[in-house]
């Protein structure tokens, strides 16, 4: 009996268990403080959909054996560049979204390839290097946002007329382009059908890729490089492939995220974006060496639900804005936990 309990515990995993119990606790409390259920549910659906693609971006990197891709901001930057170019050229609606994708994906492929080359030089240090590559690119791009010759008055600072604004409204371009597609109300709950379909489509593509020869080669390279070598697989190439895919999905992810949010966040906005994504997939039960689509779905759902439910409940008890602190504690805590287990599993 005790063994079986232990096994069940092992299967669920400590982070997932803690977060799930917290969620149950806060949901009960939410009912007590009479939070409107329909509003919470709509919020959960939207936030789940908009964040899940960014979480999905972590999968190829984990499978290729480069660990949690904490350099997600690289892909995010590509997506943002695509978006501002689309707005600059005055595209609107669906065409602006597609144009942004068309500009940013080739860019992400190039950037991902270059970053992959870097990762091949620093095997074993991917996560720490990735963190600082992420930080550096965010700072580096601040210069670009300031100096790039964009002219569209919607985006440049109102005074002075040069440099892009901190946040750019997407009203005229692709605001809610996915969320709005085929969306309907279920009672008082708004279902963002397009967003969820988009996520499902990408997840399916990632899953399908995992079943192809290249996908299998990538996974083999990730789970045992020496074995892969003996199968004639080039480990370096597979690591680059994983990094490119991760970067491309991150770039698609930020566009999905922004259209739902309604704004582009430039400058310091993307600085910390990799961490909640990493936390979500870990809560879902992934490790820095093994991850599946299920981990993405379950993890993002649990993590985002908690972030929706907890702050209003806590604000009833404590004065002041608690949500940022709460997010920080959970995401950093979970990543820390995962990093401590890496070395243990590595033995």
């Amino acid at each position, binding site marked *: 009996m005790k063994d079986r309990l232990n096994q069940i515990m092992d299967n669920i995993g400590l982070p997932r268990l803690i977060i799930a119990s917290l969620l149950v606790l806060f949901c009960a409390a939410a009912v007590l403080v009479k939070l409107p259920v329909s509003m919470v549910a709509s919020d959960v659906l939207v936030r789940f959909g908009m964040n899940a693609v960014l979480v999905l971006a972590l999968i190829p990197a984990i499978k290729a054996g480069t660990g949690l891709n904490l350099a997600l901001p690289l892909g995010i930057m590509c997506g943002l560049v695509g978006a501002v170019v689309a707005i600059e050229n005055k595209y609107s609606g669906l065409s602006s979204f597609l144009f942004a994708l068309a500009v940013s994906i080739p860019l992400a492929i190039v950037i991902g390839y270059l970053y992959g080359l870097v990762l091949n030089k620093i095997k074993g240090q991917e996560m720490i290097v990735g963190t600082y590559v992420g930080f550096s690119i965010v700072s580096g791009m601040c210069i670009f946002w300031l100096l790039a010759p964009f002219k569209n008055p919607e985006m440049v600072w109102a005074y002075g007329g040069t440099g892009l604004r901190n946040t750019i409204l997407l009203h005229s371009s692709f605001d809610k382009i996915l969320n709005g597609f085929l969306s309907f109300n279920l009672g008082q709950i708004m279902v963002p059908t397009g967003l969820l379909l988009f996520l499902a489509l990408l997840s399916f593509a990632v899953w*399908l890729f995992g*079943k*192809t*020869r290249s996908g*299998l*080669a990538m996974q*083999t390279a990730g*789970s*045992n490089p*020496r*074995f892969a*070598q*003996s*199968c*004639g*697989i080039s480990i370096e190439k597979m690591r680059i492939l994983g990094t490119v895919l991760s970067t491309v999905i991150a770039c698609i992810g930020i566009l999905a995220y922004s259209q739902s949010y309604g704004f582009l966040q430039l400058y310091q906005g993307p600085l910390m974006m990799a961490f909640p994504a990493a936390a979500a997939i870990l809560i879902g039960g992934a490790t820095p060496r*093994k991850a599946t689509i299920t981990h993405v779905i379950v993890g993002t759902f649990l993590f985002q639900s908690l972030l929706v439910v907890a702050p209003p409940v806590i604000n009833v008890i404590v004065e002041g804005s608690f949500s940022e602190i709460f997010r920080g504690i959970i995401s950093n805590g979970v990543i820390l936990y995962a990093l401590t287990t890496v070395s243990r599993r590595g033995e």
Partner: protein
Amino acid sequence: MAHDSLLELLNICKEYYGNQVLKNVSLSVHKGEIHGLVGENGAGKSTLMNILFGMPVIHQTGGYEGKIFLEEKPVYFQNPAQAMESGIGMVHQEFMLIPGFNVAENIKLNRERTRANWASKVFGQKLKTIDTQKNRQDARKALDRLGMSFDETAPVGGLPVGYMQFIEVAREIDKENTRVVVFDEPTAVLTESEAEKFLLIAQKLAGEGMGVLFISHRLDEITQICDRITVLRDGEVVASLKRHEATVEKIAELMVGRKVSRIAAETKITTVKKPVLELHNLFVEMPGERVRDLSIDVLQGEILGIGGLAGHGKIGIANGIMGMSPARGAVLKDGKSLPLGDTMLMLKEGMAFVSEDRRGVGLLWDESIEQNIVAAAIQSQNKFLKKILPFIALEDRATIKQHTLKMIEELDIRCLGPHQPVRRLSGGNQQKVCIARAITLLPDILFVSEPTRGIDIGAKRIVLELLLKLNRELGVTIVMISSELAELRSICDRIAIIYQGRLEGILAPTAADLEFGLMMAGEYEHREATQA
């Protein structure tokens, strides 16, 4: 003679997890004597030394039986430090020196002569000043005793390898109470002239009244300097010889002699066969198993055994050809020259490899049996894929499952089904999965490296029979590399012995123990030359 016995081991027995590795081993070292200890890899020499020095690995695995006497007083060492304090010195095979320190500092390491100062008076012993002058004098004295003229203030890092061995010896004899010195293959890394010098030193130390326990694979050295020789085989003392009784041939025969049970009914007649794989001047840079200028032909349809002592390069051969370690030289398959270092090409050319490192290279530890078996075939031969769209082919679950079930049945892999992770299987069954993975590629030539390492006796026989069946029924040419001579002799048609990265010679499996022993010790060519 018992009155001048320095060190005596009496009826030492040791088990590792139910595996008896030492059985009633007794030996003694007298004052002023050089005692030789010889045996194949795995004969139990290292375990015996670990016991003598009280290494933690011994205590963690349940200790040992038997008694050790040092100058007729029973001793039981809990750790190596105790052994050293009691006067047993050890010169290691790998050097334990700090490159950035100079010779004197290395010799006196952790035993430095010190002077008191005000800080040590207040805060204790640890803060005493090191007396560099005295340390140098001590080191000089030790080096002079060895007849070494080099500067004691030179940093160790830049010295030739041979010198490092002498510094290790100097360190041991500098310890005032050292009465017994153990040399563990001290000449393995030395040049011929250095080795000669080393032997003189060993004799000099014995002449000063120390006891020397000398472990070596070089049988000529052993017969040259040892007063008595103990031969270990399979954890037992098979002979204790006095110097005048010992010859290189006799020792070699005693070392490898083992009842050989041949599994294959007959050896194939290979005179008319043509070479299917030719190796010319192969060099492989595999750490610890370097191949240096090896040339050999593998004949069509044979089982070629490759043997030799550990560290002489036999493992490097297959790893080099299959692109797992950097290699150069010429490899010709069916007369066609193949570039080295390209694993994919070798797989496509019909060669497969079962690695000696099952866990590190041979298996995807956490993945299913299924995935382990088909991974290489999917990558190198595009098998087990099915097209769903013009450009997209997915793994074909149905044929994968079918193939895996067939393999499980044919190789008798004991498991809960094709989805069981391989880490849950026993060693023997894991090895069968590795072989299944290789034969899924339908190779013409199969390299098998240490196929029975770490698996139990019953499973060993099954694996060997399986290899034999592959060869005799499916016509696969097999190159089997193994440290266990008996196993090579049980199924191979020819056995090549590798010595120091080169081919020493090729023997029939029925050749005499003596010839194998000589070849493994690198004495064969030498002997042939003197007889001719």
